[in-house]
C-alpha cells in the first residue's frame, strides 16, 4: 500500500489519482476524472472499471493527484491575461488547407 508515513491505519483513505484516457481515434490522453486506489496498479484497474466500461479507451494513464503541480487561481491574471491581446501569436494569417489533419 502506498500510504504516507503518518497515515498507516488500515482505514485511512486511499490516495487520490487522476485518470487520463486515450480513445480509439484520439491522439492524446484526455483527463476524464479521478478515483481512489491503494497503489498505482490498483488505480489502473479501477480506472479501467470506472472510466472505460463503455468502450471509450485504448490506453489509460493514472497519476497520483498529489504529484501534480497546478497553477493557482490567484495567479490567473499575471499568468494568462498577457497573452489575451497578442493576436499576432495565432497563425490566423495563413490559409490552412482543409485536408491537413490534426490542426
Amino acid at each position: 500500500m502506498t500510504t504516507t508515513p503518518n497515515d498507516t491505519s488500515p482505514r485511512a483513505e486511499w490516495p487520490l489519482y487522476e485518470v487520463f484516457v486515450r480513445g480509439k481515434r484520439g491522439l492524446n490522453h484526455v483527463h476524464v476524472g479521478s478515483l481512489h486506489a491503494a497503489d498505482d496498479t490498483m488505480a489502473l484497474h479501477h480506472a479501467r472499471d470506472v472510466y472505460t466500461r463503455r468502450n471509450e479507451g485504448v490506453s489509460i494513464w493514472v497519476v497520483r493527484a498529489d504529484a501534480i503541480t497546478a497553477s493557482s487561481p490567484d495567479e490567473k491574471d499575471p499568468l494568462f491575461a498577457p497573452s489575451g491581446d497578442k493576436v499576432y501569436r495565432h497563425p490566423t494569417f495563413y490559409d490552412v488547407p482543409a485536408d491537413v489533419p490534426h490542426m
Partner: protein
Amino acid sequence: MNQHTSQHESVYDGLVEDHGDVSGQWAFGTSFEDPLAGVDTTMPEGVDGADLAAYCLGLGDDALVLSHRLSQWCSRAPDLEDDIAIANIALDLLGQARLLLARAAAADPAVVPVLPEGSPAPDEDRLAFFREAGELRCTRLVELEHGDFAHLVVRLLLFSTARLALLHRLAGTRDPVLAAIGAKGATEVTYHRDYAARWVVTLARGTEESRRRLLAALDELAPWHPEQLDTHPVATRLAESGAGVDPAATAEEVEGVLAQVLEEARCPWPEAPRRGGVRGRTGRDGMHTEALGRLLAEMQVVARAHPLGRW
C-alpha cells in the same frame, strides 16, 4: 481566434465516434460490436438438439445466477470503484447468460416455458424468469448465500478460473454460436479472474483480520468447487460430437491456476471433503440448495407478476 477552436471542438472528441442519433455523447460510449455478427446460427450437423440445449442451460444458468448474486452487491462494496467493478462483472455475465439461454431455446424450443398468448417476452427472458429452481442447471457454488467481501472474491476466483478454462476450449468447438460465445466470454472472464485473484492475494496478505476472513471464505466455499469440474452425461455426449467441452478435461489447468494463486496468497487449500449431491444429483441435475429458491423469488417476482409486460 484560431479557426479550429472556434468550432466548439471538445477535448472529448477523441473518445467518441459517430453512431447515429447519439453522436458526440461520450457518456453513451462508442462502436459496440454484436458478439454474434457474421456467425452462422444454424445447428451443427450430428449434434443432438436436446443435449445442446441442456448444455447451454447449464452454462447460461451459471452466468445468470452469479450475475444476480453479484448485482446484489450494488452499493454494498467496500468503495465506489469496486462497486462499479463488481457491477461490470455482473453485467458481463448477464450478457453471457443472454446469449447462452437464447442458444438453448434455438437448440430445443421445448425447454422454453410457455407464457400466455401475446406475451412479448423473448425466449431468453422466459428461461430466466419463468423456470422453477428445479429446472435450473447451475452448479450450487454460484447460488450460495452471500458472505462478506472475502466470500465474494473467493467465489469469483473459483468460478472464473473454472469458467475461463472452459470458455477457452469452447472457442474451438463445432457449434459456431457456442464457439463465438466462448471467444467473447474468455476475454471478459480473464479480467474477472484477475480481479478476484488480486483481491484474494491482497486480503490473504493484508491484515490479520482480512486474512482470517479470507481463510474462512475459502473453508466455506472450497467444498463446493469440485462440482464445477464434474463430468455430466450431457457434457460427455456433446464433447464426443465436438460441440462441447467436458469440464473434467479442464481440471488440471483449473487446479494449477488455483494452486498458483493460493501459493502467492500463502494459503493452504482446505482439507474438508467436497459437498456431495443428493442421491448423486447436483446442480446440473436440478438439485439445488434452498438459497436458489429465495434468489429466484426475488429475481423473478416482477416478470412473473406481468407475463404480458414489455420491458
